[in-house]
Every structure is written in C-alpha cells, then in structure tokens.
C-alpha cells in the first residue's frame, strides 16, 4: 500500500494542507486490482501485462482455450504445468489478465496446492508415501534411506537438479506398501534395495 501512495506522490500537496484527503481521494478512484498492479509495478520484474517471458504466449493460449469454462483456474494451472513443467511466476499476470482476477488471487491458488510448483522440477523425482499404512510397513525407514542415497532432504532437490525427494500422503496402494513413485511410475512392496535399483535405473550413469 505504501508503494501505491508513493507512486501517486504527485497527488500529495508539497506542503500546507494535510495529505490524507488527497491520497484517499486518489486511491479511492482505483479498483483493488489496479492498486495491486500499481504496487507490483514498483517491484523489478513484476510489471503487469509486460512480456512474461518466453512462455507468455503459450500460457495465454492455454488459458484462453479454457477461460470460458466455469471456475477454470485450477484446470488451467494443471494444463500449464503439464505443458511447461512448472508455473513460472511470470505467468501469473497473464492468468490474472485472462481470467479477470487479481494476481494475489492467482498466487493464492498456486501456493495453496502442493502439486503446483513455481520452479522447475528435478529431472527425476522420488516421491515416497508417508501415510500410516505405508508407515506400518517401514515407510519412515525408506524415507531415511532415500535421504542418504540421494543426499537431499525431503522437499529438496540435488544441486544439479538431477534428482529430488518428496513426501506424499497416500497413493492408494495401502495393501502393498511401502510405496513410492520414481520418475512418475508407481511402485509398491518397496525395500531399500529395490528403491535403489529403481533410482539407478531412472538415473543411468548419474549415480553409483
């Protein structure tokens, strides 16, 4: 909000009368969305409706293809992530524009759901189920093993981006745990040794 006021500094008299009325008058003429755009315009790289990176045209096309559906934001986010691999922050203004939402609303949805990511995923992701049914057959030990094997903590990826480790709460494979996906492929009845083999298979030459 402070930024909004600063960007409208010309409306504030230099001296004499109290500035509040002038600010208020000026701010009041702006919609909430315009205020958001104004304030974001002060942040480098966050200019509204500017070029949103190389994916902007694709993102706009994906969004416009479904913008007529009821409540389409989640569907569009899925489509973009499927197409681009993640949700570059620069796409948010495009979505806000197409769907007539504020960027705060778009960001709020993106940040709420653990599936949506604003940075590229690792080349190979190992996602281990930590639900109770898998815990009952050794999921926690499997998570510890994977941390050591991959050299990363849960929720992180290796420095070179080759491999990432994530936790999931239930794949619905609760009778045949422990369960994980390696490079998107669901596997059950895992042991540390079989998980290692799957990881090695998915990352040829990358790891011993």
């Amino acid at each position, binding site marked *: 909000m402070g930024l909004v006021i600063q960007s409208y500094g010309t409306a504030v008299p230099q001296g004499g009368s109290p500035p509040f009325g002038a600010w208020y008058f000026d701010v009041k003429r702006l919609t909430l969305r315009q205020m958001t755009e104004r304030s974001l315009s002060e942040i480098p790289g966050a200019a509204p409706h500017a070029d949103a990176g190389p994916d902007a045209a694709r993102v706009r096309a994906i969004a416009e293809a479904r913008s007529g559906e*009821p*409540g*389409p*934001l*989640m*569907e569009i*986010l*899925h489509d973009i992530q499927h197409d681009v691999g993640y949700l570059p922050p620069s796409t948010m203004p495009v979505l806000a524009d197409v769907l007539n939402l504020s960027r705060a609303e778009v960001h*709020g*949805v993106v940040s*709420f*759901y*653990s*599936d*949506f990511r604003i940075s590229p995923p690792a080349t190979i992701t190992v996602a281990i*189920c930590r*639900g*109770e*049914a*898998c*815990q*009952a*057959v050794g999921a926690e030990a499997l998570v510890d093993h994977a941390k050591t094997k991959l050299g990363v903590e849960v929720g992180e990826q290796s420095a070179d981006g080759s491999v990432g480790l994530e936790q*999931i*709460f*239930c*794949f*619905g*494979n*609760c*009778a*045949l*745990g422990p*369960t994980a996906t390696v490079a998107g492929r*669901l*596997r*059950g*009845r895992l042991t540390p040794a079989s998980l290692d083999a799957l990881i090695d298979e998915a990352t040829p030459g990358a790891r011993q």
Partner: protein
Amino acid sequence: MTVTVYVPRDSSARAVGADEVAVALTAEAARRADDIRIVRNGSRGMLWLEPFVEVDVDGTRIGYGPVQAGDVAELLGAGLLSGADHPLKHGAVDELSWLSRQDRLMYARMGVIDPLDLSDYQAHGGLVGLRKAVAMSSQDVVDVVSASGLRGRGGAGFPAGRKWQTVLGAPGEPKYICCNADEGDSGTYADRMLMEGDPFTLLEGMTIAGLAVGATQGYIYLRSEYPDARDILGAAIDAAREFGWLGDDVLGSGKAFDVNIRMGAGAYICGEETSMLDSLEGKRGMVRAKPPLPALEGLFGKPTVVNNVLTLGSVPFVLAEGADAYASRGLDRSLGTQIFQLAGNIKQGGVVELGFGVTLRELVEDFGGGTASGRPIRAIQVGGPLGSYLTADQLDLPLEYETFAAAGAMVGHGGIVVHDDTVDMAQMARFAMEFCSEESCGKCTPCRVGSTRGVEVIDKITAGDDRTGNLTLLLDLCDVMTDGSLCAMGGLTPMPVRSALTKFPEDFGLTAQEVTS
C-alpha cells in the same frame, strides 16, 4: 482357439509388475505361437496375490498369483492356458473362499469385466438401475434411495436420500452432482479401485442422482495422486457419451446429464466437502462455514449433491434390485454393504465387501490373516488418519457406525490399517498432529496453530520434559481442537492422539493412571 487371459490394470497391480507380466505374456505367447487375447481387467481385490493372472478355461476362470514377468515362460510351458497345476495356481477364482465369502453388490463386476467395455458392463447387470430410473419420476427415485437406508460412505454417514430430497426441493438452477473422489485417507483405496476397475458403475450412480434431483451437470473431483483413475474415467465418459448415455438425451429420456472430471492438486483438505467445492470452483480449498448447506448453496452457489464415490457407486444396485434388497444387508441403522479395505501391516491385504456388522476380527484375522510381519497386532486404525487407534482387545467390535461411535472410534471410509508390535504409538500420535499441520487449510486457528503446538507438546512429553504438565496441556489442546475447529480435519485429529495416549500411555513414558486421572 483364442484363450482369454486377464491381467489387471489396477494401479496397485501395476505397481507390483502387472504391466511387465502383460508384456511378457504377449511376447512369450507369440514366441510359442499360442493364440491369446489379453484383457486388462480391474483387480479382484486380493491384492496380496497381485499381479493376479486369470485364464479362461472353458468358461471357468483359473487364477495364478502373484505372477512376476520372470514366471511367465515357465507358466506357459507348464500349461497355463489349459489351467494346469503350478505352485502359483489358486484354482477356480469364483470358488476361492476369500471371494465367495463376500457379498459383492457394488463390487459385483470388479475384476470380472473389461472396465471400458460397455457391452461387457451390460452383460453383467450394468445400466439396469439407470434404465429403471429413467422411467421413474424424480421423487420416486429419491424415495427408493431413502428407503434403502443408504448412508454417505465418505465417513460422516449422512443419509443419502435425505440429502437428495433437500436438493430436489431446493430452488435454483442449475443443480450439480459432485462426486468426491479425493480419497486422501491412508488405508483407503476402494474409490480408486472402483474408478479403475468398474468406472461405469460410478457414472451410472451419478446419472441416477442427476435424474433424481434435476441436475444436468456432474463433476468428479479426483485427486491428482490417481492418474490411472483419471485416464480410465476419461475414457469411460467418452464411451458413455458416444453410447447416448451421457449428454443431452440420457438413454432417450429427453433429459440431459453430463460428467466432467476436475483434478485436485495434492491437498488432503479438499476431501472435506465444502473445501472440495471451493477447489472445484478453481479457488484455494478453504473450508466453508455451514450453513448454508451445500445441498442448498453448493457449487457456484447452486443446490448441489456432494456424495462419495462409494455412495454413488451403491446407487445402481439399489435401483436395479430395489431398496429392500439393499436394506436386508447390514446392522441396525447401518444398512447395506461397505467396501472394507485391509491395509498396512497385513498378510492378505485387499478389499472385502460385506454388510455392516462384520467384526474387525473377521476382517483382520479371517480375511487378512494377521500381520504381514507375523508379529502380534498391536494397534489398528480404522477410518483414516482422523480415526481412533484400537487395540487387539477390541477386535470383536462390529463395524457399524453407531457401535464404533459409542466406542470412541469411527468407521469412516472403511479403511483398516494394521500395525504390529513394533509400532511406536507416540510417534503415530505425533504424526497425526504433523499431518494436520501439513494439511490444514488454515482457516480456523485451533486446527492451523493447534496442530503445530500439538507436535511440539508431544515432543516435550516423549523427551521427558515435564511429562504431566505437558500431558495436561496436550489434553487441553485436544479439547480446543475438538470443540473449536470448523471442520473434521481439526475436529477429529485429536481422536488418534487421544486414543494413542489412553491405550498406549507407556509409549509416551506415561502410566495409565496419569493419562486417565
């Protein structure tokens, strides 16, 4: 002569090598010049036998399992295609006592048919219920569902007929049918199996619901962890549209009903119905205060039926066979059958469809065969992450909504997770709080903050830091979460915590007396 071989495409079967078996069968049969046709069916639900391969020998299906790709050449060599003996052979599938002891109504076609073959579906009783509903008035359809005693299978057990009646009578157009397929509870997978193994049953139930309340649009809110279910449901919807079932003119009735799938994005809370509705609208999955009831102001503010997959999946049988046939199963006010799911440390994990009233012992010992590790059972969690832990002394409890509630537990979605005697119940209680803090939508303070404080207080107790003082604090926190949370997430998280405390105090370094005084 072409021999039909069934290899499940259920994602649990695929997770343990069913695809590899199908590939090996194709290759090896070609090499041997055996004439086979492979059908990728759903799973029979005997998951410990997956991949479970069936061969049709003169109309009788002979089962083999668990089969690995490396076994295929030997099996074919031994005479698999004529049902020959082999150490992996289990005999005629219909006669296996694990299946024949069940009462499969909703799951009648599970593993039997090709999930995407509409003629196979109809040959096994599919569309009978919908065809009857098409010829009935809306009120008559609702009356049949009410008379059947069908209660919501998502966990709360609300009478489905009463909910439908409310939506039928509610003013406002359009109306919606929302199927809650956000099956996030660990230990539950019956929704997934139905969607993958017999998706038309769900679509039929949704269509009947649409006709009953005057809704023209259905949505399936499906969790993203189930990509196979998405693919199969998508293909089933396409097939149903092409058949003239879904669309502007449902089976020539002149009434419209269509279904679309909407994917979740990894938020457990979206299994809560109001949170699911916000998510369906493309928003953050924040829980709504009730009232207004979703039946009156649901999706996009319109009258909406929100039912679980298994609730809607039960409806075709109810219409086809009548309310009395359904209500003749079950116990007291819990009528009909439930799909019980055996999970965790269990020797013979899988799904058992039986009337309510079956005891935990029958399920866990008779069907489940005890623990997979062979060690004694120590704790059983029924009803998902928000369900209470039960002890081995409580195995004779009948699974029925009110009996479980009276015992301080809940049937929930029918998931049964078994732990052996190596389980650390203080860690499981801590996990319940951790899970809540991870998955809370954040709308109300008892859930959002209470769960984080709960993890900290349990850590202090297990570290021996003022155990009795922190125990008082933890019990007080549980009270606040139970009484002050907006939805079941915060409201029920204390159930596993309290039950772990009272039944396994020694794991917290406490005595039974300290916990109960």
